[in-house]
């Protein structure tokens, strides 16, 4: 599953020029002159097979890559070629929504978590402010126990659209909680991979040569129009052992979750779920030294909401 996030990102890379040329050639080669429509009796034609009509995938040989993404061919049109030198008045009163700021707060997870010997509250939210292609993004996730923030990761990023479904994000991350605070620079990519996987992958560089990597992928499976099953995976890696925060190097933790939510409204959905979480490597050693489990099953109940 983790590999999935990475390969999805890769799948978004523009096709090589050679590949694109092939595709462009392929079309004129199709010999439509052989199709003799005059002999087709459309009046008497049986109803078309619904499988072929609404079944784009049946045309399996086609590569749809050229319909999306890629870079402009050298002979692409100049979109300003028809302007005759006219430009929009920068002081014009007419501003469409593309020049307005919008904002949103999505609390993807706000949940009570129960394990065999503990319970806590977790949150995972993302807010943004800005326009279509450039936004200020705030991401925050954390865990609270007995009213105290146990562990919190908060990021402030500048999101910039680089492709139809992908934004790059650059900014800072701040870790706080019961352990010493850590500051990081963050570089990430967030977006929608083919097959509708929501992917968020961010690399971090901290003080004293610390590095980290966080990968997250979510999927939404519509059981009905309002009942949504959401598998989710999250993995964290650290480049260097950090004893004060009880982190080892390499893969530190991995969580596989499954949440079932009911959208009372699109923006208001309670859910229940189950997660399997594990700590690995040096991080697991720290946990064991504290007498904690390194693998556990967690039951969650919470609320997803946005506005």
């Amino acid at each position, binding site marked *: 599953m983790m590999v999935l996030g990475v390969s999805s990102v890769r799948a978004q890379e523009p096709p090589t020029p050679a590949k694109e040329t092939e595709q462009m050639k392929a*079309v004129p080669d*199709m010999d*439509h*002159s052989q199709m003799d*429509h*005059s002999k087709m009796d*459309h*009046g008497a*034609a*049986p*109803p*078309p097979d619904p*499988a072929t*009509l*609404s*079944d*784009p*995938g*049946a*045309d*399996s040989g*086609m590569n*749809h890559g*050229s*319909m*999306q993404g*890629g870079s*402009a061919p050298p002979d*692409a*049109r100049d*979109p300003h070629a*028809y*302007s*005759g030198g*006219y430009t*929009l008045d920068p002081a014009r*009163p*007419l501003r*469409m*929504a*593309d020049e307005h700021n*919008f904002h949103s707060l999505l609390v993807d997870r706000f949940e009570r978590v129960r394990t065999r010997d503990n319970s806590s509250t977790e949150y995972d939210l993302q807010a943004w402010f800005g326009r*279509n*292609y450039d936004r200020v993004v705030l991401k925050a996730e954390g865990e609270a126990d007995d009213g105290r923030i146990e562990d919190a990761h908060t990021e402030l990023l500048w999101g910039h*659209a680089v*492709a*139809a*479904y*992908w934004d790059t994000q650059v900014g800072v991350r701040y870790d706080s909680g019961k352990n010493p605070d850590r500051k990081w620079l963050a570089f990430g990519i967030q977006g929608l991979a*083919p*097959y*509708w996987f929501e992917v968020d992958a961010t690399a971090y560089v901290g003080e004293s040569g610390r590095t980290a990597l966080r990968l997250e992928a979510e999927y939404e*499976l*519509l*059981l*009905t*129009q309002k009942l949504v099953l959401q598998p989710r995976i999250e993995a964290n890696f650290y480049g260097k052992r950090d004893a004060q925060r009880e982190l080892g190097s390499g893969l530190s933790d991995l969580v596989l979750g499954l949440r079932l939510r009911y959208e009372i409204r*699109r*923006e208001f959905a309670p859910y229940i779920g189950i997660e399997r979480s594990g700590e690995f490597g040096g991080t697991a050693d720290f946990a064991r030294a504290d007498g904690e489990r390194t693998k556990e099953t967690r039951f969650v109940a919470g609320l997803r909401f*946005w506005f």
Partner: protein
Amino acid sequence: MKRIPKLLCGLPNLPRRRFIQGLAAGGVLLGVSPWLRPAWAQVTDTTTGSAPVLSGTEFDLTIAETPVNFTGRPRLATTINGSIPAPTLRWRQGDTITLRVTNRLPVDTSIHWHGILLPFQMDGVPGISFKGIAPGETFIYRFKVQQTGTYWYHSHSGMQEQTGMYGAIVIEPARGGPIRADRDYIVQLSDWTDEDPMRVLAKLKMQSDYYNFNQPTVVDFFRDAANDGVSAAMAKRRMWQQMRMNPTDLADVSAYTYTYLMNGTTPAGNWTGLFRPGEKIRLRFINSGAMTFFDVRIPGLKMTVIQADGQDVEPFTVDEIRIGVAETYDVIVAPKDDAYTIFAQSMDRTGHTRGTLAVRAGMTADVPAVDKPEPLSMGDMMGDMGGGMGGMDHSAHGGMAMDHSQHAMGAMTMGGGQVRARHARTEYGPGVDMRVDMPRTNLDDPGIGLRNNGRRVLTYADLHTIGGPLDRRGPEREIELHLTGNMERYTWSFDGLEFGKSTPVHFRHNERLRVILVNDTMMTHPMHLHGMWSELENPDGRFQIRKHVINVQPAQRVSFLVTADALGRWAWHCHLLLHMDAGMFREVVVA
């Protein structure tokens, strides 16, 4: 739009389902406030919600907020002279008319005379052709009426059109035309939401499928797998999944929030037009919806189309018409029985509105069930590329044979009848989620949801403007623009550039030019060029029909000729209000 004060909200917040058809006595709450019923509201003898009629050469129009209640929840609408629809304006060709428009709103407003030829300063687009009408101000529109037919008018400011600012215009011929009907009714279709329209847009920016409750589910998958096998069920979904697109993305805003209206009346209110048996009735259909394509039929009656967008066409008889946003169609019907339902369902099949033609008020006829939504096909996405004739559905048209020899390969087509689109370099960025390389050019496709319904559905290929083009010159120049967008981000644009990043399109004064529009999206866009006619060509390059709005279907390429005889600055945009506001808007400079 603001919520109205608490004291007016006497109704409890009942479940919406109860009001999905709207209130029978919905609409403008006359009598709530005495100033709402001033002398200028010359209410005609209708009992069922038709707009007042104003005629002559001098008109006073006042724009204000008015309490309305279409769903059980009181709201404030933006109205012209206090009614929804706004007063019907009857003009006469050749007259010079004066319209004094007074703004009693706390914000700027405007009125645009849709489809009317006039000096650009009178066109009413703030920021393009004038500066708008400030609060408290009266703006005087004055122009000579050059044309005849059915048109409409609406606000071009913000979301005021969605909140009630639309009315019909009927222009009589100067010398009186042939009398075609015993009765004449305007059937103005629209969509109402209790939500603030800007909030609707903001929601779509956050979740572009917010209003779509017809999405493919796991249950559908298992049903397909059981019927057709797992691999066929997988294949059916593969391309959509790969491209991150949704085959049920038929409308951005659905009946989840919309109540569809006919002449400002909810389906429960049942607008009724009366007739005597044996009479011929002219129905002037106007789609004044902000975001809704309506598929209109009158079960039991054939409709003979005599005008489209105000222009006389060779009469053509059909069972059903898809009316794009801002289009108008005049039809003649000859009812025999006592009552007929005028049924208008939304293109996404989430709702409908209806009215009745009847010999007595209070009668009804059966109201058909809304059709099942049909998912978009490969041709809707890929044009002429996938599977050869992807976009065409040969079994459509109630078994009528299609003559493919007419699809001759004109100069603009490549071998095999295909036309390669020329994409702009700005289409390779984050604002564009798909491009169609081989668009289809056929005009005989009734469109998604109408291809296999057994009814004769009007297409542009059926329409021929009487008298041919206004200008016999061939095109001196070609302009190709692409209709683009990114559903996930909910951005809409021409050539991948939203209005704010665009430059105007320059038409040289008096030139005859060919405009080519290629739709690189999965939605049909009703494209409206202000101030000049768009003369649509058929795939062979021959004149087809003169219009002010041209629907461009998904993955379709259309071309039309324009005579740039109207000096000045004009708007050119998709008439889906939220697409326009999101940036599918260009300025045109004729100089």
